[in-house]
């Protein structure tokens, strides 16, 4: 695997996330049942579940990693 393939993977997965959101919004507009969740609804599901503490810890670690543990040029 080289840089090009790695970047292509990230782009493909980002596109999949965008497509999922577009598809969920379209399904909601058309009142389909059952329908996929939008990203905001997914966040609400996780936010109200016991997983929230794990994700908040991950969020805190990410901030520390990005803003306190990187050498700026």
């Amino acid at each position, binding site marked *: 695997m080289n840089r090009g393939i*790695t970047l292509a993977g990230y782009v493909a997965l980002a596109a999949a996330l965008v497509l999922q959101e577009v598809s969920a919004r379209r399904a909601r507009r058309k009142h389909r049942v059952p329908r996929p969740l939008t990203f905001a609804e997914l966040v609400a599901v996780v936010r109200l579940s016991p997983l929230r503490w794990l994700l908040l810890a991950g969020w805190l670690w990410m901030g520390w990693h990005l803003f*306190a543990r990187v050498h700026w040029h």
Partner: protein
Amino acid sequence: MARDNESVRPWSERPAVRAAGAVGVLAYAWWATGRSPFTTTATLAVVGAGLAAMAVGRALRPPNESRPARAGAARWVLILVALAVWQLSAYVQQPRSEHPTLSSLSNAALDSRPGRALAFTAWLVAGARFARR
């Protein structure tokens, strides 16, 4: 009448309070992202602000929010797990220039101080919103 509306509206939703909060957060973000990395000051500035954002988020919880149905989350989970696996497979390989991780890719965007301060602000806002119950 306007005064009545002001007294009914929670203090945290008043425009003046929100504007002052936004200015304060941006000023803090500018200060915090100017600390030298790998120092105790930088760690305390970031982690302290993160914990404060979580506390503020919990205090500002929205009332009467219903829990959305979990059905329909499967595809999100699948894509996010695939992203985590892809990131991990890049992380364990070297050199980093050939196998970039998301954090190494974000370094370019976070290289300038204004970019870093804005990203820091977005990180705090996201955390406060997620911490709401």
